[in-house]
Protein backbone atom coordinates (compact mmCIF):
# COMPACT_ATOMS: atom_id res chain seq x y z
CA UNK A 1 0.00 0.00 0.00
CA UNK A 2 1.24 3.44 -0.83
CA UNK A 3 1.93 5.68 2.15
CA UNK A 4 -0.41 8.31 0.82
CA UNK A 5 -3.31 6.00 -0.04
CA UNK A 6 -6.51 6.94 1.75
CA UNK A 7 -5.22 10.18 3.22
CA UNK A 8 -6.92 13.52 2.85
CA UNK A 9 -4.92 16.73 2.56
CA UNK A 10 -5.67 20.35 3.31
CA UNK A 11 -4.45 23.22 1.18
CA UNK A 12 -2.39 24.29 4.20
CA UNK A 13 -0.54 20.95 3.86
CA UNK A 14 -1.85 18.91 6.79
CA UNK A 15 -2.88 15.34 6.13
CA UNK A 16 -5.60 13.31 7.83
CA UNK A 17 -5.77 9.53 8.04
CA UNK A 18 -8.63 7.60 9.60
CA UNK A 19 -7.99 4.44 11.57
CA UNK A 20 -10.49 2.68 13.83
CA UNK A 21 -12.57 5.80 14.38
CA UNK A 22 -9.58 7.98 15.26
CA UNK A 23 -7.81 10.43 13.00
CA UNK A 24 -4.09 10.88 12.65
CA UNK A 25 -2.84 14.31 11.60
CA UNK A 26 0.56 15.05 10.09
CA UNK A 27 2.24 17.24 7.51
CA UNK A 28 2.56 16.27 3.85
CA UNK A 29 5.89 15.41 2.29
CA UNK A 30 5.55 18.57 0.18
CA UNK A 31 5.25 20.74 3.32
CA UNK A 32 8.19 19.00 4.95
CA UNK A 33 10.35 19.47 1.87
CA UNK A 34 9.46 23.16 1.70
CA UNK A 35 10.29 23.64 5.38
CA UNK A 36 13.71 22.03 5.13
CA UNK A 37 15.56 20.84 8.24
CA UNK A 38 13.02 20.69 11.07
CA UNK A 39 14.43 21.55 14.46
CA UNK A 40 11.56 22.27 16.81
CA UNK A 41 7.99 21.18 17.26
CA UNK A 42 5.41 22.31 19.78
CA UNK A 43 2.36 20.06 20.12
CA UNK A 44 -0.80 20.62 22.20
CA UNK A 45 -1.71 18.74 25.36
CA UNK A 46 -3.81 15.60 25.22
CA UNK A 47 -7.42 16.55 25.88
CA UNK A 48 -7.21 19.94 24.18
CA UNK A 49 -9.98 20.66 21.70
CA UNK A 50 -9.67 22.64 18.50
CA UNK A 51 -11.95 23.76 15.73
CA UNK A 52 -11.24 23.14 12.09
CA UNK A 53 -8.82 25.81 10.86
CA UNK A 54 -7.44 26.62 14.31
CA UNK A 55 -3.70 26.57 14.99
CA UNK A 56 -2.92 23.55 17.15
CA UNK A 57 0.85 23.25 16.78
CA UNK A 58 3.97 25.14 15.73
CA UNK A 59 6.84 23.81 13.71
CA UNK A 60 10.21 25.44 13.19
CA UNK A 61 12.73 24.73 10.52
CA UNK A 62 16.17 26.30 10.53
CA UNK A 63 14.68 29.13 8.50
CA UNK A 64 11.46 30.07 10.26
CA UNK A 65 8.49 29.15 12.43
CA UNK A 66 5.21 28.00 10.85
CA UNK A 67 1.81 27.24 12.27
CA UNK A 68 -0.09 23.98 11.79
CA UNK A 69 -3.86 24.06 11.41
CA UNK A 70 -6.56 21.54 12.29
CA UNK A 71 -7.89 19.98 9.08
CA UNK A 72 -11.09 19.03 10.98
CA UNK A 73 -12.45 19.83 14.46
CA UNK A 74 -11.63 17.44 17.26
CA UNK A 75 -10.09 16.54 20.58
CA UNK A 76 -6.46 15.49 20.97
CA UNK A 77 -6.22 11.93 22.27
CA UNK A 78 -2.54 11.21 21.66
CA UNK A 79 0.54 13.18 20.68
CA UNK A 80 3.72 11.84 19.09
CA UNK A 81 6.31 12.46 21.82
CA UNK A 82 9.11 11.03 19.74
CA UNK A 83 8.86 13.79 17.11
CA UNK A 84 8.97 16.44 19.86
CA UNK A 85 12.24 14.92 21.08
CA UNK A 86 13.60 14.29 17.57
CA UNK A 87 11.94 16.65 15.09
CA UNK A 88 14.19 15.41 12.27
CA UNK A 89 11.95 12.31 12.16
CA UNK A 90 9.53 14.48 10.19
CA UNK A 91 12.10 14.96 7.45
CA UNK A 92 12.74 11.22 7.31
CA UNK A 93 9.24 9.79 7.61
CA UNK A 94 6.33 12.24 7.37
CA UNK A 95 3.64 9.56 6.86
CA UNK A 96 4.79 6.85 9.27
CA UNK A 97 7.01 7.79 12.23
CA UNK A 98 6.47 11.50 11.70
CA UNK A 99 2.76 11.81 12.51
CA UNK A 100 1.88 14.62 14.92
CA UNK A 101 -1.35 13.99 16.83
CA UNK A 102 -4.30 11.63 16.95
CA UNK A 103 -7.75 13.07 17.48
CA UNK A 104 -11.36 12.08 17.98
CA UNK A 105 -13.85 14.02 15.92
CA UNK A 106 -17.63 14.21 15.87
CA UNK A 107 -17.75 16.25 12.71
CA UNK A 108 -15.19 14.57 10.49
CA UNK A 109 -17.60 13.83 7.65
CA UNK A 110 -18.72 17.41 7.19
CA UNK A 111 -15.39 19.02 8.09
CA UNK A 112 -13.45 17.03 5.54
CA UNK A 113 -15.60 18.19 2.65
CA UNK A 114 -12.93 20.60 1.37
CA UNK A 115 -10.01 18.22 1.91
CA UNK A 116 -8.38 16.64 -1.11
CA UNK A 117 -7.19 13.16 -1.92
CA UNK A 118 -3.42 13.04 -2.23
CA UNK A 119 -3.30 13.01 -6.03
CA UNK A 120 -5.68 15.95 -6.28
CA UNK A 121 -3.72 17.78 -3.61
CA UNK A 122 -0.49 17.27 -5.56
CA UNK A 123 -2.18 18.67 -8.64
CA UNK A 124 -3.53 21.63 -6.69
CA UNK A 125 -0.12 22.67 -5.33
CA UNK A 126 1.80 21.97 -8.54
Amino acid at each position, binding site marked *: MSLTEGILCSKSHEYLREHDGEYTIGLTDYAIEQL*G*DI*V*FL*ELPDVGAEFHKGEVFATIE*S*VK*AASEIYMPISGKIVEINESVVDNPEILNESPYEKGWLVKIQSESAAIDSIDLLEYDDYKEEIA
Partner: protein
Amino acid sequence: MTKKTFLHDEQIKLGARMIEFAGWMMPVQYSSIIDEHKTVRENVGLFDVSHMGEVYVYGKDSLAFLNKLVPQDVSRLTDSKAIYCQLLNKEGGIIDDLIIYKLETEKYLIIVNASRIDEDLNWMVRNSLGFNVEIENQSHNYSLLAIQGPKAVDLMDKMGLKKENQPEFFSIKRAELFNINLFVSRTGYTGEDGFEILVKNEFSELLWNYIVEAGQEFGLKPIGLGARDTLRLEAALHLYGNDLDEKTTPIEAGLSWSVSKTKSADYNGKETIQKQLAQGTDKKLVGLKMLERAIARHEHEVYHNDELIGVVTSGGVSPILNENIALAYVKNNKDICIGSMVQVKIREKFYKAELVKRPFVQKKNKV
Protein backbone atom coordinates in the same frame (compact mmCIF):
# COMPACT_ATOMS: atom_id res chain seq x y z
CA MET B 1 11.26 43.64 -11.04
CA THR B 2 13.16 40.88 -9.32
CA LYS B 3 16.71 40.61 -10.61
CA LYS B 4 18.64 37.45 -11.34
CA THR B 5 22.38 37.06 -10.89
CA PHE B 6 24.44 35.74 -13.79
CA LEU B 7 24.69 32.46 -11.87
CA HIS B 8 20.95 31.91 -11.53
CA ASP B 9 20.66 29.07 -14.05
CA GLU B 10 23.76 27.28 -12.80
CA GLN B 11 22.30 27.26 -9.31
CA ILE B 12 19.00 25.81 -10.49
CA LYS B 13 21.00 23.03 -12.18
CA LEU B 14 22.60 22.28 -8.81
CA GLY B 15 19.19 21.95 -7.16
CA ALA B 16 18.89 25.38 -5.57
CA ARG B 17 15.57 26.48 -4.16
CA MET B 18 15.26 30.17 -5.00
CA ILE B 19 13.64 32.92 -2.95
CA GLU B 20 13.41 36.65 -3.32
CA PHE B 21 15.90 38.55 -1.21
CA ALA B 22 16.57 42.31 -1.40
CA GLY B 23 15.09 42.45 -4.90
CA TRP B 24 17.03 39.44 -6.20
CA MET B 25 16.21 35.80 -6.83
CA MET B 26 18.74 34.06 -4.61
CA PRO B 27 19.33 30.43 -3.57
CA VAL B 28 18.09 29.83 -0.02
CA GLN B 29 19.28 26.24 0.09
CA TYR B 30 20.49 23.37 -2.07
CA SER B 31 20.51 20.15 -0.01
CA SER B 32 19.86 21.16 3.59
CA ILE B 33 20.80 24.24 5.57
CA ILE B 34 22.39 22.17 8.33
CA ASP B 35 24.39 20.08 5.86
CA GLU B 36 25.55 23.20 3.99
CA HIS B 37 26.46 24.89 7.27
CA LYS B 38 28.63 21.95 8.33
CA THR B 39 30.26 21.84 4.90
CA VAL B 40 31.53 25.40 5.43
CA ARG B 41 32.74 24.68 8.98
CA GLU B 42 34.47 21.42 8.00
CA ASN B 43 35.43 21.69 4.33
CA VAL B 44 34.62 24.51 1.94
CA GLY B 45 31.49 26.11 0.50
CA LEU B 46 30.82 28.22 -2.58
CA PHE B 47 28.42 31.16 -2.39
CA ASP B 48 26.94 33.41 -5.05
CA VAL B 49 26.66 36.80 -3.37
CA SER B 50 26.40 38.80 -6.57
CA HIS B 51 23.44 40.71 -5.16
CA MET B 52 25.88 42.74 -3.07
CA GLY B 53 26.80 46.17 -4.34
CA GLU B 54 30.15 47.43 -5.60
CA VAL B 55 30.84 51.13 -5.50
CA TYR B 56 34.10 52.74 -6.58
CA VAL B 57 35.26 56.01 -5.11
CA TYR B 58 38.13 57.85 -6.72
CA GLY B 59 39.59 61.28 -7.03
CA LYS B 60 41.92 63.64 -5.20
CA ASP B 61 39.67 63.96 -2.14
CA SER B 62 38.57 60.33 -1.88
CA LEU B 63 40.32 59.75 1.45
CA ALA B 64 38.90 62.90 3.04
CA PHE B 65 35.47 62.04 1.64
CA LEU B 66 35.46 58.49 3.03
CA ASN B 67 36.74 59.76 6.36
CA LYS B 68 33.68 62.00 6.57
CA LEU B 69 31.35 59.04 5.98
CA VAL B 70 32.62 56.45 8.46
CA PRO B 71 33.92 56.44 12.05
CA GLN B 72 36.91 54.28 11.12
CA ASP B 73 40.14 56.05 10.28
CA VAL B 74 40.42 55.33 6.56
CA SER B 75 43.84 57.00 6.44
CA ARG B 76 45.20 53.93 8.25
CA LEU B 77 44.51 51.85 5.14
CA THR B 78 47.54 51.04 3.05
CA ASP B 79 47.29 49.84 -0.55
CA SER B 80 45.41 46.53 -0.96
CA LYS B 81 44.10 46.58 2.62
CA ALA B 82 40.47 46.46 3.65
CA ILE B 83 38.56 47.79 6.64
CA TYR B 84 35.09 47.05 8.06
CA CYS B 85 33.07 50.24 8.66
CA GLN B 86 29.61 51.70 8.95
CA LEU B 87 28.10 54.50 6.93
CA LEU B 88 26.59 56.82 9.56
CA ASN B 89 23.87 59.44 9.43
CA LYS B 90 24.26 62.76 11.28
CA GLU B 91 22.88 61.20 14.47
CA GLY B 92 25.35 58.31 14.39
CA GLY B 93 22.73 55.80 13.18
CA ILE B 94 23.90 53.14 10.76
CA ILE B 95 22.81 53.60 7.13
CA ASP B 96 24.75 50.50 6.11
CA ASP B 97 27.70 48.39 7.15
CA LEU B 98 30.34 47.83 4.52
CA ILE B 99 33.91 47.00 3.67
CA ILE B 100 36.21 49.60 2.16
CA TYR B 101 39.13 48.26 0.11
CA LYS B 102 41.98 50.56 -0.80
CA LEU B 103 42.99 49.47 -4.29
CA GLU B 104 45.59 52.18 -4.70
CA THR B 105 46.08 55.84 -3.80
CA GLU B 106 42.85 57.75 -4.48
CA LYS B 107 41.05 54.59 -5.61
CA TYR B 108 38.75 52.68 -3.27
CA LEU B 109 36.25 49.87 -3.69
CA ILE B 110 33.31 49.62 -1.32
CA ILE B 111 31.21 46.48 -0.99
CA VAL B 112 27.74 47.23 0.39
CA ASN B 113 24.55 45.35 1.23
CA ALA B 114 22.17 44.67 -1.65
CA SER B 115 19.21 46.04 0.28
CA ARG B 116 20.98 49.36 0.89
CA ILE B 117 22.63 50.29 -2.41
CA ASP B 118 20.19 53.10 -3.19
CA GLU B 119 20.33 54.62 0.30
CA ASP B 120 24.13 54.34 0.31
CA LEU B 121 24.53 56.03 -3.07
CA ASN B 122 22.10 58.81 -2.21
CA TRP B 123 23.92 59.48 1.02
CA MET B 124 27.33 59.41 -0.60
CA VAL B 125 26.29 61.80 -3.33
CA ARG B 126 24.66 64.19 -0.83
CA ASN B 127 27.86 64.20 1.19
CA SER B 128 30.19 64.66 -1.75
CA LEU B 129 29.55 68.38 -2.17
CA GLY B 130 32.85 70.23 -1.99
CA PHE B 131 34.92 67.05 -2.43
CA ASN B 132 36.78 66.30 -5.63
CA VAL B 133 35.55 62.69 -5.94
CA GLU B 134 33.78 60.42 -8.34
CA ILE B 135 31.30 57.87 -7.02
CA GLU B 136 30.67 55.07 -9.46
CA ASN B 137 28.13 52.31 -8.90
CA GLN B 138 29.54 49.24 -10.64
CA SER B 139 27.13 46.73 -9.06
CA HIS B 140 25.54 45.84 -12.40
CA ASN B 141 28.90 44.87 -13.91
CA TYR B 142 30.26 42.53 -11.26
CA SER B 143 29.48 39.15 -9.81
CA LEU B 144 30.72 38.25 -6.34
CA LEU B 145 31.55 34.68 -5.35
CA ALA B 146 32.67 33.57 -1.92
CA ILE B 147 34.75 30.51 -1.10
CA GLN B 148 34.62 29.90 2.64
CA GLY B 149 35.87 27.17 4.93
CA PRO B 150 39.03 25.57 6.30
CA LYS B 151 39.89 24.10 2.89
CA ALA B 152 39.45 27.38 0.98
CA VAL B 153 43.20 28.04 1.04
CA ASP B 154 44.03 24.64 -0.48
CA LEU B 155 41.32 24.99 -3.08
CA MET B 156 42.60 28.41 -4.09
CA ASP B 157 46.13 27.03 -4.25
CA LYS B 158 44.96 24.25 -6.55
CA MET B 159 43.16 26.75 -8.76
CA GLY B 160 46.42 28.57 -9.37
CA LEU B 161 46.66 31.23 -6.67
CA LYS B 162 49.48 29.71 -4.65
CA LYS B 163 49.42 29.97 -0.87
CA GLU B 164 52.40 32.33 -0.80
CA ASN B 165 50.60 34.68 -3.20
CA GLN B 166 47.20 34.64 -1.53
CA PRO B 167 46.06 37.92 0.03
CA GLU B 168 46.36 38.20 3.80
CA PHE B 169 43.35 38.59 6.10
CA PHE B 170 41.40 41.72 5.13
CA SER B 171 43.46 42.33 2.00
CA ILE B 172 42.62 42.33 -1.69
CA LYS B 173 44.69 41.68 -4.78
CA ARG B 174 44.31 41.36 -8.51
CA ALA B 175 44.72 37.78 -9.64
CA GLU B 176 44.09 35.42 -12.50
CA LEU B 177 42.19 32.15 -12.13
CA PHE B 178 41.61 29.96 -15.19
CA ASN B 179 42.83 32.87 -17.33
CA ILE B 180 40.11 35.14 -15.92
CA ASN B 181 41.19 38.46 -14.45
CA LEU B 182 39.56 39.18 -11.12
CA PHE B 183 39.98 40.54 -7.60
CA VAL B 184 40.50 38.14 -4.70
CA SER B 185 40.06 39.33 -1.13
CA ARG B 186 40.52 37.47 2.17
CA THR B 187 37.13 38.39 3.59
CA GLY B 188 33.79 36.74 4.22
CA TYR B 189 30.68 36.49 6.32
CA THR B 190 30.94 33.06 7.93
CA GLY B 191 33.60 33.29 10.63
CA GLU B 192 35.76 30.90 8.59
CA ASP B 193 38.89 31.56 6.62
CA GLY B 194 38.14 32.16 2.98
CA PHE B 195 38.00 34.43 -0.01
CA GLU B 196 35.64 36.63 -1.92
CA ILE B 197 36.12 36.87 -5.66
CA LEU B 198 34.98 39.87 -7.65
CA VAL B 199 34.64 39.05 -11.32
CA LYS B 200 33.08 40.69 -14.36
CA ASN B 201 29.62 39.27 -15.04
CA GLU B 202 30.55 37.78 -18.38
CA PHE B 203 33.08 35.43 -16.75
CA SER B 204 31.15 34.49 -13.62
CA GLU B 205 29.42 31.40 -14.99
CA LEU B 206 32.67 30.01 -16.35
CA LEU B 207 34.43 30.70 -13.06
CA TRP B 208 31.59 29.20 -10.99
CA ASN B 209 31.73 25.95 -12.94
CA TYR B 210 35.53 25.76 -12.73
CA ILE B 211 35.34 26.20 -8.97
CA VAL B 212 32.60 23.59 -8.58
CA GLU B 213 34.79 21.13 -10.49
CA ALA B 214 38.08 21.99 -8.78
CA GLY B 215 36.34 21.88 -5.41
CA GLN B 216 35.16 18.28 -5.67
CA GLU B 217 38.25 16.79 -4.03
CA PHE B 218 37.88 19.22 -1.12
CA GLY B 219 34.22 18.34 -0.53
CA LEU B 220 33.02 21.70 -1.85
CA LYS B 221 29.27 22.28 -2.02
CA PRO B 222 27.23 25.29 -3.13
CA ILE B 223 25.77 27.13 -0.13
CA GLY B 224 22.51 29.09 0.04
CA LEU B 225 21.44 32.14 2.01
CA GLY B 226 19.90 29.93 4.71
CA ALA B 227 23.27 28.57 5.78
CA ARG B 228 24.90 31.96 5.20
CA ASP B 229 22.55 33.26 7.89
CA THR B 230 23.21 30.45 10.42
CA LEU B 231 26.96 30.76 9.79
CA ARG B 232 27.05 34.50 10.36
CA LEU B 233 24.85 34.16 13.44
CA GLU B 234 27.22 31.63 15.06
CA ALA B 235 30.05 34.05 14.32
CA ALA B 236 27.86 36.86 15.77
CA LEU B 237 28.26 38.93 12.60
CA HIS B 238 25.57 41.58 12.26
CA LEU B 239 22.89 41.48 9.59
CA TYR B 240 21.77 44.88 8.33
CA GLY B 241 18.02 45.32 8.76
CA ASN B 242 17.96 42.85 11.67
CA ASP B 243 20.78 43.83 13.99
CA LEU B 244 21.71 47.20 12.51
CA ASP B 245 19.53 50.09 11.40
CA GLU B 246 19.43 53.88 11.23
CA LYS B 247 18.35 54.13 14.88
CA THR B 248 21.30 52.13 16.15
CA THR B 249 24.87 53.33 16.52
CA PRO B 250 28.01 51.19 16.18
CA ILE B 251 28.67 51.66 19.90
CA GLU B 252 25.27 50.22 20.82
CA ALA B 253 25.83 47.42 18.30
CA GLY B 254 29.02 46.28 20.00
CA LEU B 255 31.12 47.59 17.14
CA SER B 256 33.28 50.03 19.13
CA TRP B 257 36.33 48.11 17.89
CA SER B 258 35.56 49.45 14.41
CA VAL B 259 35.36 53.06 15.59
CA SER B 260 38.53 55.13 15.71
CA LYS B 261 39.05 56.82 19.08
CA THR B 262 41.88 58.98 17.82
CA LYS B 263 40.66 60.16 14.42
CA SER B 264 40.94 63.94 14.24
CA ALA B 265 38.81 64.36 11.11
CA ASP B 266 35.19 65.24 11.59
CA TYR B 267 32.68 62.59 10.47
CA ASN B 268 28.90 62.20 10.37
CA GLY B 269 27.61 61.27 13.80
CA LYS B 270 30.89 61.99 15.57
CA GLU B 271 29.24 63.97 18.35
CA THR B 272 26.91 61.09 19.29
CA ILE B 273 29.65 58.49 18.97
CA GLN B 274 32.07 60.41 21.18
CA LYS B 275 29.37 61.03 23.77
CA GLN B 276 28.44 57.35 23.83
CA LEU B 277 32.08 56.30 24.08
CA ALA B 278 32.49 58.58 27.10
CA GLN B 279 29.15 58.09 28.84
CA GLY B 280 27.83 54.76 27.65
CA THR B 281 24.64 53.87 25.81
CA ASP B 282 21.05 53.11 26.75
CA LYS B 283 20.99 49.80 24.90
CA LYS B 284 23.57 47.18 24.04
CA LEU B 285 23.82 44.13 21.83
CA VAL B 286 24.18 40.82 23.66
CA GLY B 287 24.35 37.14 22.81
CA LEU B 288 21.71 34.75 24.16
CA LYS B 289 21.80 31.01 24.52
CA MET B 290 18.40 29.40 24.95
CA LEU B 291 18.21 27.05 27.94
CA GLU B 292 14.97 25.51 26.69
CA ARG B 293 14.22 24.09 23.29
CA ALA B 294 12.29 26.99 21.77
CA ILE B 295 13.91 29.18 19.13
CA ALA B 296 14.15 32.92 19.66
CA ARG B 297 13.56 34.89 16.47
CA HIS B 298 13.65 38.48 15.24
CA GLU B 299 11.31 40.75 17.31
CA HIS B 300 10.73 38.36 20.22
CA GLU B 301 10.75 40.28 23.52
CA VAL B 302 13.37 39.75 26.23
CA TYR B 303 12.51 39.96 29.96
CA HIS B 304 14.63 40.12 33.12
CA ASN B 305 12.88 39.60 36.46
CA ASP B 306 9.50 40.19 34.76
CA GLU B 307 10.64 43.50 33.29
CA LEU B 308 10.75 44.00 29.53
CA ILE B 309 14.40 44.80 28.81
CA GLY B 310 14.79 44.37 25.09
CA VAL B 311 14.19 42.53 21.87
CA VAL B 312 15.76 39.75 19.84
CA THR B 313 17.10 40.97 16.49
CA SER B 314 18.46 37.69 15.09
CA GLY B 315 17.91 34.17 16.32
CA GLY B 316 18.04 30.61 15.22
CA VAL B 317 19.79 27.32 15.61
CA SER B 318 23.50 26.77 15.89
CA PRO B 319 24.19 23.57 13.96
CA ILE B 320 27.69 23.37 15.46
CA LEU B 321 26.73 23.88 19.12
CA ASN B 322 23.41 22.11 18.63
CA GLU B 323 21.81 24.89 20.65
CA ASN B 324 19.51 27.79 19.93
CA ILE B 325 21.20 31.18 19.95
CA ALA B 326 20.21 34.78 19.40
CA LEU B 327 21.42 38.35 19.25
CA ALA B 328 19.33 40.84 21.20
CA TYR B 329 19.40 44.48 22.22
CA VAL B 330 18.82 44.93 25.94
CA LYS B 331 18.99 47.76 28.45
CA ASN B 332 22.57 48.69 29.19
CA ASN B 333 22.48 47.96 32.87
CA LYS B 334 25.20 46.47 35.09
CA ASP B 335 22.83 43.75 36.34
CA ILE B 336 22.35 42.48 32.81
CA CYS B 337 25.67 40.92 31.89
CA ILE B 338 27.33 37.68 30.77
CA GLY B 339 25.82 34.88 32.87
CA SER B 340 22.55 36.72 33.57
CA MET B 341 19.36 34.70 33.24
CA VAL B 342 16.61 36.21 31.11
CA GLN B 343 13.38 35.05 29.49
CA VAL B 344 12.40 35.27 25.84
CA LYS B 345 8.70 35.56 25.05
CA ILE B 346 7.88 33.21 22.18
CA ARG B 347 4.25 32.77 21.11
CA GLU B 348 3.00 34.12 24.47
CA LYS B 349 5.16 31.76 26.54
CA PHE B 350 8.37 32.52 28.41
CA TYR B 351 11.52 30.49 27.80
CA LYS B 352 14.76 30.71 29.78
CA ALA B 353 17.92 32.02 28.18
CA GLU B 354 21.37 32.98 29.38
CA LEU B 355 23.50 35.93 28.31
CA VAL B 356 26.66 34.53 26.75
CA LYS B 357 29.79 35.83 25.06
CA ARG B 358 29.85 36.64 21.38
CA PRO B 359 30.80 35.05 19.02
CA PHE B 360 28.95 31.85 19.89
CA VAL B 361 31.42 29.82 17.84
CA GLN B 362 35.05 30.94 17.86
CA LYS B 363 36.01 32.58 14.59
CA LYS B 364 38.82 30.88 12.71
CA ASN B 365 39.26 33.47 9.99
CA LYS B 366 42.10 35.54 11.42
CA VAL B 367 45.30 34.40 9.82
